[in-house]
Structure formats: C-alpha cells, structure tokens
C-alpha cells in the first residue's frame, strides 16, 4: 500500500504526457462562407436552367472595378454558391446562353469571425439589401440574411415558366 502513491504518480505523468497527442480539432468543413441561391418557378418549385450559365462577380472599389469569373458555362443549374466580396456591395452578373444578362446587386455587412486558434478566421456576412434586373428572372428574395459556413439557402431567384414552353 505504501508504494501506491508512487505508482499512481508515475501513471499520472504517463497519462498527462499522452493526452495532448489525442486531441481532435473540429474545424468546420467549409473554410469559406458562400451565398446560396436557389432557382424556383412562380409556384416556388425548384427549377433548372438547362442551358449554359456563366456568373461573373463584380466589385467596385474607389478607383477600379474588379471582375472575377465565378462560374464558367455551367449547365443544368438549379442552385448557385457564390462568394461575396470583402467590399460593401457585390454584383453578380448572370450571363445566359442567349446573351441576355441579369445583374444581382447584394449589399452586405462583413463580419470577420474568429472560430478558434487552430481553425483560424472566416468572413461571415449579413445581407442588408438585394436588388436585381429582370430580363430573364422575375425577382430575387432574401430567405436568410445570415451567410455563414452552415450552407443554408440565403436567396430565392424566381423565374416565370410558361407551361406551354416546358
């Protein structure tokens, strides 16, 4: 019984030195917070844009306008996952196959966010406004203004689909 404290002391040192080795870091799977758009028809049903669609992001700074091709000629598109800029306003130019264009203008508040020391920082956003041109699409609705790494739908893009054309 007298040796018990010594044995336990050694055991403790062994366990303590082993412990940091089995720490698991649970970093979020997505390192970037994207704005999630869903295409729907006038009845709210999910629709696909079958033809080619290109999306260009546009940021206007004090002295320049920056264009960034985010999606190049994708087909069968029913959702879009697009990065907002670190500016206060981001435009997304949707180029359809028939050379028509729609421009979505999103204003947002940027929220630099510290996740933890090991997983680092991320930019989250709060959408404060959304406008759109209506050449091909009907309207743009904010369904969830908080853009974080949970991949929830943030916007619905409404298209009018006439039954005869389908």
């Amino acid at each position: 019984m007298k040796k018990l404290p010594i044995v336990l002391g050694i055991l403790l040192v062994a366990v303590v030195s082993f412990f940091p080795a089995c720490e698991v870091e649970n970093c979020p799977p997505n390192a970037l917070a994207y704005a999630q758009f869903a295409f729907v028809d006038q009845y709210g049903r999910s629709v696909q844009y079958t033809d080619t669609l290109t999306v260009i992001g546009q940021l206007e700074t004090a002295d320049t306008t920056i264009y960034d091709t985010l999606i190049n000629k994708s087909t069968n598109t029913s959702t879009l996952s697009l990065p907002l800029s670190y500016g206060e306003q981001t435009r997304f130019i949707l180029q359809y196959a028939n050379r028509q264009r729609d421009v979505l203008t999103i204003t947002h508040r940027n929220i630099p966010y510290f996740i933890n020391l090991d997983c680092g920082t991320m930019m989250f956003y709060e959408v404060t406004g959304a406008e759109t041109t209506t050449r091909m699409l009907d309207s743009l609705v904010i369904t969830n203004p908080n853009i974080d790494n949970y991949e929830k739908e943030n916007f619905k893009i409404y298209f009018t689909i006439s039954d005869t054309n389908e």
Partner: protein
Amino acid sequence: MLSPLQAQKPGVHKATPAEIKKEDKKKAEQTEPVPFYQGTSIGVEIAGLGSYLLGSDILNSEIAVQANLKNRFLPVIEVGYGKADAINDGNNLHYKTSAPYFRIGMDYNVFYKKTHLPGYLYVGLRYGMSSFSYDVDGPSMTDPNYGGEVSYPFAYSGMKSSASWLEGVLGLKVKIYKGFCMGWSVRYKMRMNVEGHDNSIPWYVPGFGKNAGSSFNLTYNLIYNLPF
C-alpha cells in the same frame, strides 16, 4: 464436469453465515456514532502549474477547501486562476485571457466505511463559473476572390464573456505523511454556456479549458488536513 448438485452445495452453506456477519457489522457501527464534522482540508492543484513550467501556453491552478462531513459527504469550494497567452505558428493568430474562476460542489466518499485504509476513492459533482475578458488578434484578412483588393484588420480586445459548466469527478485521495495527502482526479466537463460575440467566441475559458461541448481534465493535488 461438475454436477449441478455439487455446484449448488457450497453456495447454500455459505449463504446463511455471511448474512449474519453483515448484521453484526451494522450493529457495531450503530453503537459508535460517527461525528458529523470531521475536519477541513486545503488543497493546491499543481498539474496545471507543472505543465505551464514545461512550456504550455496555458496556466491553470486552483485552491480547494473541502469539509468532511461524516467521512462521507465532502462539500468543496474551488477557487482558481486560468491564463492563456497563445499564438498559433501556422496562422499567426493570437489569443489572450486571464481570469479567476469558481467552482462549488460535493464529493462522496465511496469508501466511507473503510476508515482503516490510507486513502479513499470518491465521486463528485461541480458547478463552475468564470467571468473573463479576452483579446484575439491576427493577420489582416484578405479577400480570396475579387483580386484580393480589400482586406480587413483582425484585432478584437477586451471582449467580455462569461461561462458556466458542470463537472463530474472521479478521484483518489491518499495520506502521505501526518496531515498531508495527495489527490488525483479525472474530470469530465460539460459546457452549459459560453458567451460569444459578433466576431468571435472564446477559445480558452479559465477553469473549463478549450471551448468545446465537453472536455477531459486531470488534476493532481497536494492536500493538507487542517488541525481544526
């Protein structure tokens, strides 16, 4: 091969005397009343101090004052100090906090009848709380898209937060010399609440550890039984 008869026999014979012995013991204990108050001990946690001296970014130490009631119920108050000043070399993020924390709870001596042993095993519960403020800073965040034109400085200091949690304790306390004892315990901590901010959540919570749903912790205490 044992026949069922052989197997049953010894059991039948033993059953009656064993029960009588137990009753005798109970009677003996009832005649000797156990004093309600059996003293107070004061302990210092040194494993946290040790790992800090070995180069950890985290310092955690506490003092525990524990009363002994009927050698069975051991209410305890723990007052500690937690400090973290860490930089991740990979992403250059820096997190800093230091604050006291408090825990209140009780241990239950599983060996309360076995007073002849040099130590005892106990299980316990704690409620912990801390109110602290933290600083977090790192390199500026640069837009990964749109040509990297815009960047945001990243530094938030004096963020106030509070936390509360529950702990389940399994431990051992052993006498070493006169009134001095040593104690080891394993603690499973369950986060109840950690207050976050718009731009951050605490990474390290004094008294709880790294901010997660739960955490494991080992403690090593030097304890002195006060002579009153």
